[in-house]
């Protein structure tokens, strides 16, 4: 099973690094989409199915926390897991985004293995939930990879 992934970050170079990390993670990727802020990300979510979003917090136009609030307000989008990859590393900020419904949190700067760990964990949970709803068994999301 391949997953459609959306990376949201105002830094082109950070999106490129996250893309490289995800492509090396062993997760099977369908479509790989990018947005430079929360507003642009919502436009993509309205147009196509995305399995997981990896989002920055500190962005112009619409930051990651407001983006998550919009996603959670939408009856269709609210089940899409949103993982934050952010420099905002205070416990208070992490508690805030978890209470808003974030699926995971990776602090910048990060080790690539950390993104893989959180991504695989979140996708496994999302996949298991979907399979349970459809009444079939769950399979692992990623095969073993040793690129890290």
């Amino acid at each position, binding site marked *: 099973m391949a997953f459609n992934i959306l990376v949201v970050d105002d830094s*082109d170079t*950070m999106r490129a690094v996250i893309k490289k990390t995800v492509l090396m993670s062993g997760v099977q990727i369908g479509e790989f989409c990018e947005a430079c802020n929360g507003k642009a990300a919502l436009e993509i979510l309205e147009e196509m199915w995305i399995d997981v979003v990896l989002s920055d917090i500190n962005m112009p136009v619409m930051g990651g926390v407001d983006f998550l609030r919009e996603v959670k307000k939408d009856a269709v989008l609210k089940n899409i897991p949103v993982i934050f990859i952010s420099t*905002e590393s205070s416990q208070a900020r992490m508690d805030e985004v978890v209470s808003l419904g974030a699926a995971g949190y990776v602090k910048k700067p990060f080790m690539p293995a950390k993104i893989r760990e959180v991504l695989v964990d979140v996708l496994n949970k999302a996949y298991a939930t979907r399979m349970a709803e459809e009444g079939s068994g769950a399979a692992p999301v990623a095969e073993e990879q040793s690129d890290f």
Partner: protein
Amino acid sequence: MIGEIEKTQLNAAAVEVFGMMYYTPVELLPELPTQESSSERQYIKTAIEYTGSNRASICFYFPRTLAVNIAGGFLGIDEDQISDSQLIDTMREAANMIIGNFLGRIDPDGGCTLGIPQAEVTQGFSPDRARQGDELLAFISDFGHLWMIYNENGSGQN
């Protein structure tokens, strides 16, 4: 004035960001250098501020050779193919990570909000850019000195 605790945490933040993301060591110098360690002509000037329960504006001057080295490694492209806009983007993110990491250390309650960094390529750097109320700090790197102007009133445009 930036206190010794803040300086220690700032150094820890810079060391972590440069070490983990860019594999390039940096270290805050206990004293300002008396002269520039290289004939660096261009810097990526990157300004960022935070507001809230504490406030400050920070302006980094990243030597261009340092920026080229880390952007090349970060993006996996040859150094002679890196554009100014890629340098600016990489250093904006570096400043964002350093100060975000710093805030995570000194502001565990999350009372401060980090601004959006702004950057440009600029010619040369002189310590005279630091004005009254500013604190000038210097980090040593393999690619010359990385300068930082810290203003706790959040008013600096150095």
